[in-house]
């Protein structure tokens, strides 16, 4: 093969990124549920025929890291020979290389000159897939079978034709089939756009050349990643964190890491972690792998082309049957949203011992997953919705943590108040940042947010899956911990907000399902704040004064957290 100049390589890399971005735009513009079109809870990717991810864009790290496994599983289980032009496969099985049940992958082979050249795919959070809880986020599930409809890789479109039998099974098991229909079409539509664009590249460069170029890009990313790892001192670094409870039993579940840096590779050994939980905070192997990759990638150069070459030097070791590698038929819906950022934070905490100048303190790490369902009084139609909030990110050695951010495992947006109220019978009473919720430090952790919602319908059924409502995001190098989060309820006529355990007797304050609320009841969601970096005493008075002026800390907070008298 001729040598390929670096200019052409970077052109090809950019073109692949652009295809993925374009898929994302199409999905945002055409999908039905807010978690798609406002939340952008999806990731678009391109694979070569061997199953290497050669293109991605600024999407959710959990899906990007796990796409590698989901696509490979599909290719291996079905066999390359079973794909035909115009096919689309759907797949959400956590026991076949997927992250958790709501994440659905659609995958389309791209044929060029009569053979499969590669695949275009996207993974997206389908908001309602059946199971024991509306919104399919069963915080008290004990088996995967309660979490919704499980789909192994199956064709939903075969040679361009709908496989209606499969569609009927899927749509009969979802509570809001119309929305699923719209969202799945948005996903599949974006695949045709990507296919067309990839074919355009293939015509321009030729199949062999594009394969060679993408191989070079994979190697290039791997080489660069190895160089970056080489700059990290060799050694064994330990860190741990816990999930405060699992939704079924009120016991913490521990994640423990031994991270070994060995020349140009990193081994993330999670085998000392707790056995798998009864409730759904278990991570699948691919979630743990994706979180391990993400930890490393957050601490190395942002300029490395993002493809599966980046992941190659990172080895993940787990034990089946543990919280970081759930065994069938354990539940895992919260593993992907809540446990993932904890795992990633633990990687960063371990590496902070080796490369303190690049590390960040822990983030709030909760998506504050809030699910609700009911019949809309205006339309008489049944709806469900998956709602998320952002938490504070950890401070780094070079800046304060960002406030109210999607946890690291995703890269999702919030739903605007004006969109939420247009679609669902809630009135938002406030949406604010929480003073003093950022961990104090030379650099301050990001703030969590507060949202209060009032029920406008006769009934709304709510569920939640959060964490860090009893525990805290830790600080680094003397930095203080971030403020706790929480979800609270004020029944109509009550004078104060209470925890759901107090008001409804749920096992966990932060993880529960199917609580029935009535008109006039209010829910308050507090997202946790991020940890601080460096001793609070080292924070400059100017920064403290600014935080006071902007209301990011209160006068009491200044005294208590910083010993600063305003």
């Amino acid at each position, binding site marked *: 093969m001729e040598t390929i100049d670096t200019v052409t390589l970077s052109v090809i890399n950019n073109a692949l990124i652009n295809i993925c971005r374009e898929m994302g735009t199409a999905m945002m513009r055409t999908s039905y549920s807010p978690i798609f079109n406002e939340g952008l809870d999806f990731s678009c990717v391109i694979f070569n025929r061997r199953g290497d991810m050669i293109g991605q864009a600024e999407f959710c790290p959990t899906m990007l890291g796990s796409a590698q*496994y989901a696509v*490979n*599983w599909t290719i*291996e*289980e079905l066999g390359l020979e079973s794909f035909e032009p115009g096919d689309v496969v759907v797949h959400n099985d956590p*026991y*076949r*290389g997927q992250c958790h049940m709501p994440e659905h992958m659609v995958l389309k082979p791209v044929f060029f000159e009569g053979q499969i050249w590669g695949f275009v795919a996207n993974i997206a959070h389908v908001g309602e897939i059946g199971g024991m809880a509306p919104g399919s986020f069963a915080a008290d599930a004990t088996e995967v079978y309660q979490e919704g409809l499980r789909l192994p890789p199956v064709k939903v479109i075969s040679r361009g034709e709908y496989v209606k039998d499969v569609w009927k099974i899927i749509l009969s098991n979802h509570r809001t089939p119309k929305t699923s229909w719209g969202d799945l079409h948005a996903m599949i539509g974006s695949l045709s756009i990507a296919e067309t664009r990839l074919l355009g590249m293939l015509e321009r460069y030729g199949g062999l050349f594009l394969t060679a170029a993408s191989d070079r890009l994979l190697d290039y990313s791997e080489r660069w990643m190895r160089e970056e790892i080489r700059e990290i001192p060799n050694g064994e670094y330990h860190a741990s964190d816990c999930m405060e409870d699992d939704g079924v039993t009120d016991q913490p579940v521990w994640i423990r890491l031994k991270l*070994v840096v*060995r020349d140009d590779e990193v*081994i993330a*050994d999670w085998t000392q972690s707790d056995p798998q939980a009864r409730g759904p905070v278990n991570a699948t*192997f*691919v979630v743990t*792998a994706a979180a391990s990759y993400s930890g490393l990638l957050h601490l190395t150069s942002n300029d490395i082309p993002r493809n599966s070459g980046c992941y190659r030097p990172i*080895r*993940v*070791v*787990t*034990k*089946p049957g*543990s919280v970081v*590698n759930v*065994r*069938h038929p354990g539940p895992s819906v919260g593993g992907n949203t809540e446990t993932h950022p904890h795992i990633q934070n633990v990687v960063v905490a371990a590496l902070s011992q080796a490369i303190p100048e690049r590390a960040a303190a822990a983030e709030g790490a909760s998506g504050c997953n809030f699910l609700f369902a009911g019949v809309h009084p205006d339309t008489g139609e049944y709806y469900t919705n998956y709602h998320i909030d952002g938490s504070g990110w950890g401070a780094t050695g070079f800046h304060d943590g960002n406030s109210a951010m999607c946890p690291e495992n995703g890269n999702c947006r919030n739903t605007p108040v004006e969109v939420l109220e247009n679609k669902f019978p809630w009135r938002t009473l406030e949406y604010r940042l929480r003073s003093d919720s950022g961990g104090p430090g030379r650099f301050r952790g990001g703030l969590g947010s507060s949202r209060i919602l009032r029920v406008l319908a006769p009934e709304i059924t709510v569920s939640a899956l959060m964490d860090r409502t009893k525990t805290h995001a830790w600080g680094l190098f003397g930095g203080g911990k971030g403020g706790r989060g929480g979800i609270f309820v004020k029944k109509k006529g009550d004078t104060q907000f209470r925890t759901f355990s107090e008001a409804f007797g749920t096992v966990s304050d932060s993880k529960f399902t199917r609580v029935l609320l009535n008109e006039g009841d209010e829910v308050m969601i507090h997202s946790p704040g991020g940890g601080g970096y460096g001793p609070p005493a080292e924070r400059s008075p100017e920064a403290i004064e600014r935080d006071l002026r902007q209301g990011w800390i209160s006068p009491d907070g200044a005294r208590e957290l910083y010993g600063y008298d305003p």
Partner: protein
Amino acid sequence: MGRWDENTAEWYEQTMIYCDLCGRIIPKNFWVVEEGAERLVFCDPDCEKLYNDYWVPSQDREA
């Protein structure tokens, strides 16, 4: 010395084979290493290699 093997379970069965190093569930093809009575299953020779040059020594050290 290892060899490639594959999961021959029928399509209607649910059997899960885990890699003895990384813990991943293996879709179909796996790498088997048999030494005496001991039979180890890996994703690929890379996992076998890490098993030998990382996992075994680290267990020995702890023991």
